[in-house]
């Protein structure tokens, strides 16, 4: 029970129960009068045109890929940053070298035009 993650688990349970409570009260108290016009999809007051699941712009995927590389890099940088004061200078420089390799990856993506919006 001294484990901190147990209390995080309790927090998670409370944090899930508390937002559900007003939703349950609302489900109990609020009127329920559905009709087809109310339930139709909103498009600025006109009839919807075309499928609502539109085409996915591929550039979002490219940005997600670039983000993935840097996210994994930051995960690797966390232990390096934590133990920086206990390690000699050359380990700091090795970490810097790791960051520079990934920065060169960013420069490559930049020059290749992967960071453009179109």
């Amino acid at each position, binding site marked *: *029970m001294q484990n*901190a993650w147990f*209390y*995080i688990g*309790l*927090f998670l349970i*409370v*944090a*899930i129960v*508390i*937002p*559900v409570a*007003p*939703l349950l*009260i*609302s*489900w109990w*108290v*609020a*009127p*329920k*009068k*559905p009709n*087809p016009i109310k*339930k*139709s*999809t*909103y*498009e600025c007051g006109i009839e*919807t045109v075309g499928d*609502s*699941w*539109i085409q*996915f*712009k591929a550039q*979002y995927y490219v*940005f997600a890929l*670039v*983000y993935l590389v*840097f*996210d994994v890099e*930051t995960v690797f*940088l*966390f232990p390096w*940053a*934590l*133990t*920086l*004061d206990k390690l000699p*200078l050359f380990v*700091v420089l090795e*970490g*810097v070298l790791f*960051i520079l390799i*990934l*920065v060169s990856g*960013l420069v490559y993506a*930049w020059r290749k035009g992967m*960071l453009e*919006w179109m």
Partner: protein
Amino acid sequence: MTFWGDPINFIAGWLRNVLMGWGMGSALTNVFISLLGILVLVVVALVLDIFLVWVERKVVARFQDRFGPNRVGPFGLIQPFADIIKLIIKEDITPEGADKVVYNIAPVLAATSVIILWAILPIASTIIAVDLNVALLYLVAAGALGTLAIIMAGWSSNNKYALLGAFRMVANMISYEVPMVVALLIPVIITGTMSVKGITEYQSGIWIVFLAPLAAVIFTISAIAELGRAPFDLNEAESEIVSGFNIEYTGMKFGWFYASELLHSFTFGGFIAVLFFGGWQVPLLMADGFHFGSSVVALGGIVVTLLQVASFLVKSMIGYWIIMWVKYSMPRIRIDQMLAFNWKFLTPLSLGMLIITAIMDKLLAPTNFYVLGMFLSNVILAWITIEILRKVGHRQRKVEEAALQPVVEVVHH
């Protein structure tokens, strides 16, 4: 241990005696008391959230040279309560074709992802819900849950606008996670610990904002982008996609999206205060009173705790005020400008700052020039960045001016 000395532990001890006197096992008693404490903290956070709705509406009104709500109760203080009651009794319209399960889970997840952040927020030196030793990693992970809630809301609403808003918002939020996490690594390098309690206790010497001002600025900008507040609020660009991902939500579900955005802003204001501005540290205040040089003004435990809580709240409100100030002063920027700003400016800048901070921290730690050296290295980096930006902007302006030169026409008679 008296009540005034350490009120929380006193009440916990008293409750434990009562419950074990009734025959409850020791482990179950601990769980029950922890649950009670967590409930109290979450209820306090949510009441604060309601107060924040009032603050937000009054502040935006004053920015726009009007009064804001002032009819309901004195100064409009009862207005948010009236709003909550109105939202609860409104009809819950689920659009046809919406994915019911995901549609209903999304607002709950949005609210949950903000409430669980309060587990690691240090409110005073003796008041912290959970003293995690990987608190900053937990902060990043819990923030990612909010992103998930938005894409769930946008996808399941069966609405083009919601989907567009959700896509843009998610591209925004994941992009700005990189400079945010890198800026979070700077206090970790300086203090050598990931726990927010350790970082706050380190700042009894000097606030981290004086050691790494550029990190504070980058963290603030990335936090504002993570929150989805203006100028990065593409998910609710009212003039463009009419309320974005929460377009099909009514009643309390919409209420939870709105309330969780405000509470998230305040929580990030709190994290800016904790990580960079000392959190609950009051200058010259130690555990037993003010220390002016060699003389000690002794204060009781409860007064010290109250001063620390007040310091935390004041600093968080100032952080929240800065976030609101930016929101109501700046126009919204386009998605490509936003992504270019992140990937072409903030990410290289934050990685460069990380490299310089790591090297300077290692070189200067044993010397006397630590504070001055770190501060100067940040200032020099900021100056170099501004010079580079100036040259790039200059060159771009020259190109645009050359394109606008009137074409010399040869006139034939």
